């Protein structure tokens, strides 16, 4: 476990006032908030920032941390010395118990489960607490939503040893993804969250579903949109074509007189479910290149024989 310099995380001096800490926190929270930030590591940075704020905005925690920080620097290997926090009493202000699930081992060892299990706080005899619920994202193919799938996910789970030290352990789960799942929907895995304290039950794990972006398909709720290229003669004369879709190859009737942008609805061919979505196929007419004598001759014949001016039709 590495020592964390919370002042460095917030970019403030060690002498910063409460107001300066609040200001620095808000500025960084605005930059790294996962809902708005485009930074790749936004979630991790936000966790560090919240953690630093939880300590530095609480006078008691800050005082205890400052005393400890005199002996360590950022990134240095660290184990909390025994009774490092003797003489300090935390009120719990500045963070909520459940936030601990989102904080680092370093924080948990100093102020969370680890410190409580070492004998401080509420970890008295017979104290039991349900483990916290945890949240993770799982990214699947659109095809998985049509057919169902199994995905292996690895999560870091905090473990507290007999001495109350907290460490992270990798926990791999094979998760059944049910058919018909939508982007943004959650799967709840009972008892797969953080372990309970004092023999309390484990929390639940909530998995939020996201789809891997696929240039062929666009998803809106349970409706799926795709573009299908067609030849000019298929569009003009009508045709029966085969096209791949997320649920496999389907035969599609292209109506005569179709233009690029025409949308055909395949009812119930979207993501399955109690109220299945539709598949919208948008036709895109693709012209063959005039890259041979024959092709050029055909285009010249059309130019001569067909009285066709698309600009005139559009009134332009």
């Amino acid at each position, binding site marked *: 476990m590495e020592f964390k310099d919370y002042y460095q995380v917030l970019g403030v001096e060690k002498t910063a006032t409460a107001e300066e800490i609040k200001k620095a926190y808000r500025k960084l*929270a605005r930059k790294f908030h996962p809902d708005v930030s485009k930074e790749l590591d936004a979630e991790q940075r936000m966790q560090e920032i*919240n953690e630093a704020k939880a300590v530095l905005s609480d006078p008691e925690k800050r005082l205890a941390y400052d005393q400890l920080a005199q002996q360590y620097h950022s990134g240095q290997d660290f184990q909390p010395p025994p009774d490092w926090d003797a003489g300090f009493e935390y009120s719990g202000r500045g963070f909520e118990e459940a*936030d601990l699930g989102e904080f680092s081992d370093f924080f948990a060892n100093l102020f969370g489960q680890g410190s409580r299990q070492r004998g401080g706080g509420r970890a008295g005899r017979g104290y039991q607490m349900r483990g*916290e*619920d945890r949240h993770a994202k799982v990214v699947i193919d659109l095809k998985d939503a049509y057919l169902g799938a199994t995905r292996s996910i690895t999560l870091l789970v905090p473990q507290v040893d007999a001495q109350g030290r907290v460490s992270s352990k990798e926990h*791999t789960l094979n998760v059944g993804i*049910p058919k018909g799942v939508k982007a943004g929907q959650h*799967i*709840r895995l009972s008892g797969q969250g953080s372990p309970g304290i004092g023999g309390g039950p484990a929390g639940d794990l909530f998995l939020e579903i996201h789809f891997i972006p696929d240039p062929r398909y666009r998803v*809106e709720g349970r409706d799926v949109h795709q573009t299908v290229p067609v030849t000019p003669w298929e569009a003009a004369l009508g045709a029966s074509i085969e096209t791949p879709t997320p649920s496999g190859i389907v035969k599609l009737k292209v109506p005569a007189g179709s233009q690029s942008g025409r949308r055909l609805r395949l009812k119930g061919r979207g993501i399955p479910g109690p109220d299945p979505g539709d598949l919208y196929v948008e036709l895109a007419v693709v012209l063959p290149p005039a890259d041979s004598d024959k092709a050029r001759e055909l285009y010249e014949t059309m130019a001569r024989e067909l009285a066709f001016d698309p600009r005139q039709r559009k009134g332009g």
Partner: protein
Amino acid sequence: MVQRAITSGDLIDEATLTLDELARACSVETDWVIERIESGLLADGSPYVASWRFTSHDLTRARRMHQLERDFEAAPELAALAADLIEENQRLKDRLRAAGL
């Protein structure tokens, strides 16, 4: 090679969350949820809210509002407004993507 058992879960929406489950999943007290429902900031218009049941969308919104309130010390109404705008932005982006733009 280690063979791991397949863990199956409940698909939220088909099985909705209770008030306690929603509060726990968002790391808040049930009163926090109740206050925001009574103020029309959460689960507004949901057909399940009358029976105190909650969907995936309610879970996402409640977690988002809680984070906004906590991270920016925002008033619940302001967090709800930001959540509205984020949801609307997401909807518009989805529609643009669906239109191939």
